[in-house]
């Protein structure tokens, strides 16, 4: 089945990121962070502009103005008009776009806010100011197809599998045996998404992501 991650693994394709932030300074910085990380970027100043770009303000279709599919949406939380949370909800409610990973950025490290966003399906919650290492980590996650959608499926599959069955490399993730990228062992991975994948089975959904965020002050 077609998953965002599969498309990305053909090396020549670049991630196209839609960045949403009402602050000029932050928009400029996030755009640069993404460009340096070899992503195509479209930066807009509001949630409504973002929806316009996606064509969600009337027409369906995941193509932006220039026909580029959006692979990731990264948005500020506190914006006048539509907040990042509201934008997240609209995207997750849309059949055309709900598969696109959405990352929330906020200068405020508020647990209830983080939880709310993760509950609503946000991929990640980044505390501002965003660093290059955050963007690199994020990009790696997306490129490996380690998104909420895939994690959800993988978790579901594991839940009903025998304990005796081997960890499924044939599961519904895009990292198929034919992929050129080797799968790192989950326990060794430094990235948040892998941490969540292993601990999800054992504990509450967002505690490890939260723990990581809170400890990184």
């Amino acid at each position, binding site marked *: 089945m077609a998953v965002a991650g599969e498309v990305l693994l053909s090396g020549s394709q670049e991630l196209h990121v839609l960045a949403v932030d009402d602050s*000029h300074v*932050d928009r400029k910085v996030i755009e640069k*962070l993404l460009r340096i990380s070899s992503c195509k970027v479209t930066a807009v100043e509001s949630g409504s502009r973002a929806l316009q770009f996606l064509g969600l303000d009337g027409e369906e279709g995941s193509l932006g103005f220039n026909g580029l599919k959006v692979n990731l949406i990264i948005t500020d939380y506190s914006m006048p008009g539509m907040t990042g949370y509201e934008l997240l909800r609209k995207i997750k409610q849309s059949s055309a776009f709900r598969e696109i990973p959405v990352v929330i950025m906020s200068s405020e490290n508020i647990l209830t806010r983080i939880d709310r966003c993760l509950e609503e399906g946000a991929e990640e919650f980044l505390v*501002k*100011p965003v660093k*290059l290492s955050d963007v690199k980590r994020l990009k790696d996650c997306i490129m490996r197809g380690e998104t909420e959608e895939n994690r959800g499926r993988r978790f579901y599959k594991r839940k009903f599998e025998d304990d005796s069955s081997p960890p499924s490399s044939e599961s519904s993730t895009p990292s198929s045996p034919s992929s050129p990228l080797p799968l790192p062992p989950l326990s060794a991975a430094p990235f948040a998404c892998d941490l969540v994948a292993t601990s999800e089975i054992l504990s509450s959904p967002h505690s490890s992501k939260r723990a990581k965020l809170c400890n990184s002050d």
Partner: protein
Amino acid sequence: MESRTLRQQIISMRQSFFDEEILDGQFTQLEQLEDRDNPNFVEEVLTLYFRDSTALLATLEQAMETVPIDFPKVDKMLHQLKGSSASVGANKVRNEINKTRELCQETKVEGAKAAFQELRKEHDTLKAKLEPYFHQLRQAGSAESAMRPR
């Protein structure tokens, strides 16, 4: 010879910003984003920052002079200013914003006004220090590219 002195000046100016804690690690993050395509990225970001912050401070000044002060409105603006200040690594400015915000949240009018003046001072100091720094950087940049073999 001349460019070496210039570079030394730049290095010590820059170091003083960190020693005096007027800038923090986020500024270094921005520096790491500069490349050949964008050799003046940091200056561009800071220029953008000062354009917005100067306007915001003017609005804040007015708001602080209004009787009674609309504290929620002031807080919102301070939050905005804090965000962009943090994004460029303006450490002392950010600290003064936090102090001002706290006093506003406690509706301590006189304290908040005094803190706001401190905030303005730090902001203007930062601007005054960065302007010659970027000027020197540009000079060094053009000197270097003049020396670079074609």
